[in-house]
């Protein structure tokens, strides 16, 4: 049948026989895509008298927005913080591999490094949409160097810095440019941090609190100045105390400015956070929970010993230890594993688990108008899952970019 598609000639794909995540519920509906975006089929029908060029039978799969990982340090032997001439090869390798985990956009994360590394690495990777070559880059997540020495974790102490003044000088001197930066993690107890937080917000950079010994009022002050995220809640911060809840208290603080949400990252690999703690956070503030992998170089590598930079790491199941010890050397759970584990540990609905991996990070980064959801006009970055939330197929801009072997 000839059709009158008066708006565009681009082919229209209709995903049928599926359940889509829309308006916080899994609904038995078809999903229409054109020109890499989700299409309104009713407008197509009445305005353009158009219909699908191709029907794709999803065999009953769940169709969810592609996952967004805002904290990932590397994987498959690649370490984003390792200074080198050609950063883009490593980023591209990881970007391609994480399509298998349903991740369609991510923030390559750099741990505390000397300025030379930031100056060399940051300009090499621009913010760009994904495709068959790999997941899209939303911008770097700079975790440090303006963090607490006491809570630095595995970050190298000699490269920690403080703010000499409140202006942009320290930022520019350290990072070089903020053009390709999506998020910065800092410790708000550092003097002059308030104006730095405001400055970063003005430049459109998301500010996260982490690796810090701040108390609740310092954290609330930072939020008032624009901070909106907590880096891996519970880890690298003061523990919750009933007379000073610290940064954790932001989850239920009544000092959050109206209309704003404080989001918090959770590494839901079953190892970095006790499931009971995960449940406390989720129940206290479900709409702020953002699943992150915080994956390290060893993610994606097979079990056994691996030499990664200066470290030798032993991989056993979901644990990555410093070889010969029982010290955890980082997370190696993939994003889809985190989604499955989170659902099981929190006892939440499928919809909640999927939103924690897509909608919430999109809202955090202020990109929810085009990512993280299946509303009309959004980018058609999709992940097709079976009922066990295992990834079957991944799409970016409506194009299939990965398919599981049957």
């Amino acid at each position: 049948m000839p059709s009158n598609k008066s708006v565009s000639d681009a082919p229209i794909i209709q995903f049928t026989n599926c359940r889509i995540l829309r308006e916080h519920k899994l609904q038995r509906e078809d999903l229409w895509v054109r020109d890499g975006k989700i299409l309104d089929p009713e407008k197509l029908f009445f305005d353009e008298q158009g219909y699908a060029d191709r029907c794709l039978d999803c065999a009953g799969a769940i169709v969810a927005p592609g996952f967004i990982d805002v904290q990932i340090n590397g994987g498959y032997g690649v370490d984003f913080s390792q200074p080198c001439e050609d950063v883009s090869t490593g980023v591209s390798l990881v970007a391609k591999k994480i399509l298998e985990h349903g991740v369609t956009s991510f923030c390559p994360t750099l741990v505390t490094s000397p300025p030379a590394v930031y100056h060399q690495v940051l300009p090499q990777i621009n913010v760009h949409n994904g495709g068959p070559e790999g997941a899209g880059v939303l911008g770097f997540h700079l975790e440090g160097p303006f963090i607490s020495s006491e809570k630095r974790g595995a970050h190298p102490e000699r490269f920690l810095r403080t703010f000499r003044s409140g202006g942009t000088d320290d930022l520019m001197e350290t990072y070089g440019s903020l053009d390709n930066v999506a998020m910065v993690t800092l410790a708000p107890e550092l003097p002059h941090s308030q104006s730095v937080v405001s400055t970063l917000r003005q430049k459109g950079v998301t500010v996260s609190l982490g690796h810090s010994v701040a108390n609740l009022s310092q954290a609330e002050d930072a939020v008032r100045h624009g901070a909106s995220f907590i880096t891996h809640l519970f880890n690298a911060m003061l523990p919750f105390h009933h007379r000073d809840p610290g940064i954790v208290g932001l989850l239920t603080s009544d000092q959050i400015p109206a209309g704003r949400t404080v989001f918090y990252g959770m590494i839901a690999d079953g190892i970095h956070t006790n499931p009971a703690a995960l449940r406390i956070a989720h129940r206290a503030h479900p709409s702020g929970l953002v699943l992150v992998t915080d994956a390290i170089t060893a993610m994606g590598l097979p079990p056994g010993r691996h030499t990664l930079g200066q470290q030798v790491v032993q991989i056993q199941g979901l644990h990555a230890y410093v070889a010969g010890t029982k010290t955890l050397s980082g997370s190696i759970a993939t994003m889809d594993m985190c989604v499955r584990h989170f659902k099981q540990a929190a006892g939440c609905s499928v919809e909640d688990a999927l939103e924690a991996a897509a909608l919430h990070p999109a809202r955090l980064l202020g990109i929810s108008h085009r990512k993280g959801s299946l509303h009309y006009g959004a980018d058609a970055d999709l992940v097709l899952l079976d009922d066990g939330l295992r990834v079957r197929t991944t799409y970016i801009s409506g194009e299939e970019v990965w398919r599981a072997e049957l």
Partner: protein
Amino acid sequence: MRLVILDDYELASEWAAKYIRNRIVEFKPSADRYFTLGLPTGSTPYGCYQKLIEFHRSGDLSFKYVKTFNMDEYVGLPRAHPESYHSYMWNNFFKHIDIDPANAHILDGNAEDLEAECNAYEQKIAAAGGIELFVGGIGPDGHIAFNEPGSSLVSRTRVKTLAKDTIVANARFFGNDLSKVPTMALTVGVGTVMDAKEVMILITGAHKAFALYKAIEEGVNHMWTVSAFQQHPHTIFVCDEDATLELRVKTVKYFKAGLMHVHNQLVDPVLSMKDHYKL
């Protein structure tokens, strides 16, 4: 008329859908000869639409060579509003079947010139060769489409102001807030529907019983516009038991006990596109 009485809403919906299916399949529509179908909206025909969708999914009925003309649409309600008749038809019918969007006609309640829109609609119907089967419902005030009490029985497609009864009946779709219900609508006229080769009116529920009584047991009257179909050569009323509650026992016995076996021959056997024609 044929008064087809089924035990309940589900059976009435099914009978009506089977009848529509048989009519389309027997007609053997093709690119040169479309089947033109008039369609209603509302809670009454919902079950019938569900059944038609089922028939389409099983491969027994295609709408590829069917042209549809809806009866009415609110004036001034945005087309994307969930209560517009465009939304109703998309969600409850069009999105589940294979009709060509160019053949699905609904009046545009947001047209610049409403009168011109109505006249154009009449012309589209004429250009399509007239309506083969017009399916409709009945309001509690006995109206067909939005031909409210007092509408001319020879009226054509035009703008109508809704009666209080109709607005109250529709309030449940607008959060029970009378102020949110549209007050005007574009509607096919009584005359427009009378021009169809065949008319099928679906009437279910006790709240429609009095209107059915007025429509078929009293005289032709512009206060109960469905009564106009007493003068149409081929009218079928499909109802459930509850809708017959205000009728005379004699009427019901005549049509139910007396004629149901004849009515059932119209839907048994139920024909399938698979046997009868190739697309």
